[in-house]
């Protein structure tokens, strides 16, 4: 018990880091679902593409010998990665989903899975073509770490260490989430997005171009997912074309946990899932006396998900959906 408690600060730090990634990626799922009732299974691969695009940009800066202060490089790469993955998202919607909008729901879902494979293979091809290996290790912009002296606050806690990269990741993802929340709730186009999610036909009667709003939704969801991919690459150093699959699945889980279609729900769902997972990884073997090891962390996290869905099927923050009259 005292082990669990003393490790808690580090668990929280690592859990929130992972959770922040889940949260931003979950936003992409939840926004698209809210508007089209489509599970965009390719979204995990957009995250992965962002990781590769960002890392690729960073490596080419090195190749061309362009040196800038690290934070300028970071911002530039984030913006460029966001722009490119945003356009990728728009393109995917145009090519793979829009022609199928009136088809039965299963069909665009299959199309989304197809896009996932295409993106995985494309990225693998380019990575191998450029570096000879599809597993890529990037350079890191920010070395160093900070120690937070939790032990001096409460004696039973151990200190937590945070990499500078982690601080940046948490900071930027929080900024992304705040900006998105303001955009969706306070701006004209954000309100139009919610209007389209609630009633497309009527939104069109208000002179809202529904296709434009859908493109915008894909752009934003993909841009923030892609940018987070680059932050992920910085955080964990090594990336491969398949990181999007499991991470996407978990981010989708986070979106469901928070109530799919609910933007704030996705944010909290992501953070909760991240903390649960890291907590399980750190403590499962202590709790069960070594019977169940940390490799069962996903089982633990998904068990929580199943329990939530049994008792609150609309998700933690979702409203129970009434049939439209």
């Amino acid at each position, binding site marked *: 018990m005292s082990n669990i408690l003393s490790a808690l600060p580090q668990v929280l730090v690592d859990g929130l880091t992972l959770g922040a990634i889940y949260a931003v990626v979950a936003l992409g799922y939840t926004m698209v679902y809210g508007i089209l009732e489509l599970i965009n299974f390719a979204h995990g691969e957009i995250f992965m593409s962002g990781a590769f695009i960002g890392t690729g940009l960073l490596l080419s800066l090195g190749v061309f010998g362009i040196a800038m202060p690290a934070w300028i490089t970071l911002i530039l790469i984030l913006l460029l990665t966001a722009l490119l993955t945003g356009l990728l998202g728009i393109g995917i919607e145009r090519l793979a989903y829009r022609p199928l909008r009136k088809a039965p729901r299963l069909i665009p879902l299959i199309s989304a899975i197809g896009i996932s494979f295409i993106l995985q293979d494309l990225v693998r091809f380019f990575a191998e073509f450029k570096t000879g290996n599809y597993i890529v290790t990037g350079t890191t912009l920010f070395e160093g770490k900070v120690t937070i002296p939790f032990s001096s606050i409460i004696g039973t806690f151990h200190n937590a260490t945070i990499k500078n990269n982690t601080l940046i990741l948490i900071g930027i993802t929080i900024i992304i989430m705040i900006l998105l929340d303001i955009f969706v709730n306070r701006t*004209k186009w954000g*309100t139009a997005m919610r209007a389209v999610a609630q009633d497309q036909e*009527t939104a*069109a009667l208000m002179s809202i171009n529904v296709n434009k709003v859908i493109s915008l939704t894909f752009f934003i969801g993909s841009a923030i997912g892609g940018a987070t991919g680059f932050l992920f690459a910085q955080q964990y150093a090594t990336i491969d074309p398949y990181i999007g699959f499991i991470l996407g699945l978990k981010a989708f889980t986070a979106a469901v946990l928070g109530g799919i279609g609910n933007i704030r729900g996705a944010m909290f769902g992501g953070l909760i899932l991240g903390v649960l997972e890291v907590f399980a990884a750190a403590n499962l073997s202590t709790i069960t006396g070594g019977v169940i090891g940390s490799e069962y962390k996903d089982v633990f996290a998904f068990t929580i998900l199943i329990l939530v869905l049994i008792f609150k099927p609309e998700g933690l923050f979702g409203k129970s959906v009434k049939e439209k009259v």
Partner: protein
Amino acid sequence: MGYNSLLELKQVSAYYDQIQALHDLSLHVDQGEIVTLVGSNGAGKSTTLKAISGQVKTTGTILFQQKDITKLPPHETAKLGVAHVPEGRRIFPRLTVKENLEMGAFQLKDKKEIQNQMELVFQYFPRIKERLNQQGGTMSGGEQQMLAIGRALMSKPSILLLDEPSMGLAPIIVEQIFEIIEELNQTGMTILLVEQNAYQALSVAHRGYVVQTGNIILADDAKALLENKQVTEAYLA
């Protein structure tokens, strides 16, 4: 036929997938008129409005302010000044009343203009002003209908298409809604009104069309239609 009609439909047919819902229907609405389409359920009244705003596939010609709008999608039609209040009100349930109104004014760029338009809506519907921060879906049916009309007015339209504004409302509320329709018309608004409540509709309208199985079977002044035996027997009984 009005040569300078604000809105004119010439031999319009409309289709839902394979099913034809309108058969060469022609009508016109002049500036400043209230024109009503009456007829029984499924006659094609709502479809006529949907054809105008581009929600169904149509053939034939639809002219609005002399411009051919037959093939325009709904959001383009709306931009030209056609405000369609759909059947069942279709308030955005999880937007606030204020946000609903703002969406009505989506095409207006000037904040001042939007504010003015909102003040105008409050004059017609004082109750809306008291509920600005409430979610649209939590209002009563009558309030939602008022909001739906108010929302349509936000775009500064040249014509209002009203689809069954009295549907499901208590008689006293229906009375109020029709008073406002007349009031709007007196300040210059042109209105095309679809109603099952033929008596009410013909009482406020200048002219009326009787629609049956996707065709106009009778067109006359509203007063004359109210006294027409065929109409009274079929729709006013």
